[in-house]
């Protein structure tokens, strides 16, 4: 086993906390091969455990792809350690029904990505700088590969470009596929310690990509994903969070799953709302009517289900300061005021939901705050019309 591979295997296993070691290793197919008689790790020091495991992996000649698979499994268990961006793909209207073939998609994606990277490195394209939410149409590099892949270049390329990028797939629940991409160049093997993850839900237009420092590689990744999944365009949504499951719940509109049916046993009026008025008869509530009104509005806007978990919302303001009071310095500017407002919370939507009932804000709340799940955005740019 190559030294770099051994190091990669060791570092990947070291990342795993001892408490999760068994769960994660047992999900890893290679673990069965190394025939480890261990079934639990209680009472063991991590270093000795890792040492034994790495030796066994070396014995059985673990490859980079095996270690990459373990890395995917680790990331699936610790998905909140990455920040996820949401991308949406679109098709031309009137196209064929999507007959998604997973095998075809995987081989297609790998080929297209490898060729696009090769093209990008051989022919650095004069692409316009990509802004955060601009759509990335097929750039020069991708167009070039489409032309070249049809010609005699096609077969020669695959032999040369295998180590430009290493791609690993793992199927997940709900028909999703996790893709791990480690990026390299013509002169350097792929860097296994800074991979990009893609979580793609086939037959939906959505993919979730982990934020990475390598800005230049994301457009190519987007193009490869778009073409392999038979779409035409990919757009990065202004929606970002660590909580992948919340992003998915919001984008797939699965966060409100309470429906009224005739089978319901609890009549609606008697359901206790989140912030109960105390049942203690010694407490008299003076503004009961106002409290009820606020409660009703809050429930209409936020529903009575647990809110999906987001950690921030950011508003970039480019507006003129409007004030009815004595015109101060701010009101006399000709150019718009630029400022950034960021709301952070362990659970932003629950916090917003409790603002009005707690008396901190008026109900109804500003639509800029309440539109986050409906608009699938938490990055806003507000300009004067």
């Amino acid at each position, binding site marked *: 086993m190559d030294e770099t591979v051994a190091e990669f295997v060791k570092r990947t296993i070291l990342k795993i906390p001892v408490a999760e070691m068994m769960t994660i290793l047992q999900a890893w197919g290679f673990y069965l091969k190394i025939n480890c008689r261990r079934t639990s790790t209680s009472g063991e020091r991590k270093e000795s455990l890792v040492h034994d495991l790495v030796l066994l992996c070396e014995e059985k000649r673990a490859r980079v792809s095996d270690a990459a698979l373990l890395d995917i499994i680790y990331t699936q268990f610790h998905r909140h350690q990455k920040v996820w961006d949401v991308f949406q793909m679109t098709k031309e209207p009137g196209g064929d029904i999507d007959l998604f073939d997973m095998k075809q998609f995987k081989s297609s994606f790998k080929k297209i990505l490898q060729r696009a990277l090769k093209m990008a490195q051989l022919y650095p394209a004069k692409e316009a700088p990509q802004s955060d939410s601009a759509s990335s149409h097929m750039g020069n590099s991708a167009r070039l590969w489409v032309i070249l892949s049809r010609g005699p270049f096609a077969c020669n390329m695959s032999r040369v470009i295998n180590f430009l990028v290493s791609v690993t797939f793992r199927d997940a629940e709900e028909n999703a596929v996790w893709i791990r991409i480690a990026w390299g160049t013509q002169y350097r093997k792929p860097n296994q310690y800074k991979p990009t993850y893609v979580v793609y839900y086939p037959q939906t237009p959505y993919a979730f990509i982990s934020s990475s420092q390598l800005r230049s590689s994301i457009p190519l990744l987007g193009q490869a994903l778009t073409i392999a999944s038979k779409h035409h365009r990919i757009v990065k949504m202004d929606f970002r969070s660590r909580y992948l499951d919340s992003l998915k719940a919001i984008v797939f509109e699965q966060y409100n799953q309470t429906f009224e049916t*005739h089978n319901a046993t609890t009549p609606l009026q008697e359901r206790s709302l989140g912030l109960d008025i105390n049942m203690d008869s010694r407490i008299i509530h003076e503004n009961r009517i106002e409290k009820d009104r606020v409660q009703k509005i809050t429930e209409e806007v936020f529903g009575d289900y647990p809110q999906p978990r987001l950690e921030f919302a950011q508003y970039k303001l480019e507006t003129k300061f409007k004030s009815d009071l004595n015109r101060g310095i701010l009101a006399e500017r000709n150019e718009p005021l630029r400022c950034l407002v960021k709301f952070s919370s362990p659970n932003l939507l629950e916090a917003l939901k409790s603002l009005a009932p707690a008396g901190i804000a008026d109900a109804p709340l500003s639509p800029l705050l309440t539109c986050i799940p409906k608009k699938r955005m938490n990055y806003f740019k507000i300009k004067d019309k």
Partner: protein
Amino acid sequence: MDLANTSSQEGEPKGGVLAHLERLEARSRKKFEEPQGTPAAESALRSKILQLRRLRDQLRAAVERHGARVEASAEPDQALQDSEQALERKREDVKAILQAYRFTGLSGKLTSRGVCVCIQTAFQGNLLDSYFVDLVIQKPLRIHHHSVPVFIPLEEIAAKSLQTDLRHFLFSLCEHLNAYAGRKYQADRLQSDFAAFLAGPLQRNALCNLLSFTYKAEPGGQAFPFCARLLYKDLTVTLPTDVSVTYEGTDTPSPSWEEQRASHEHLLRTKPLHHVFAAFARGEERLELRLAY
């Protein structure tokens, strides 16, 4: 609390909060050590207590008597009771009917803002999942929330007919969901009940509109393995639109294999997937099967 003493608080608090607390403590100690009022006042209070207790007992007895009288007088109102019971039974019946409407496949319940539609899917008499669409009745009509899976083209169907023809929207959505549920049911049945016939894993996708598998018509026997690829290009059907059965391997196939292959292709195109394999299980892979249906 003595109001007279606290009036001194209206000015500046003398010595602050601690001093005030000390004063309160001294006062309470004084009260504790003093006798609790004169003996005359005591006995007056005692007799008042006895009076009030007697009054309370009298009132309690009166309430009990009244209650017994009401019960006794209720006995003759049998007719009222019967009609109440009948009404209650009717109410339960209607509730049960409303709940049973679910089994028609398309039912709904009025909500404060519109209607919540329930689509109960079924395939060949088997009840499968149910899906909900909560509609807000406003101009324009809109969907508030729903439980339709994300890969069903709900937005497309809504764009086509939600505003213009609600019935068409609902029927179209029913079609899609029932077809999806039917395809999923067939694929699940194949995977669970006929796993012995499959030579490898069943390849499927979210919509269950592309199925690819390798199978033998006899489980683990001498039969030749075929590769089947079923495409459902129409999302509202439960039978494949395209079927291709091929054989792997480099040997030239004998005419009997070719015949088998053609008949399998035909079966897969015309019969539900799990029925085809049930027929294989019964040993009936030949063309005679066509006559039985």
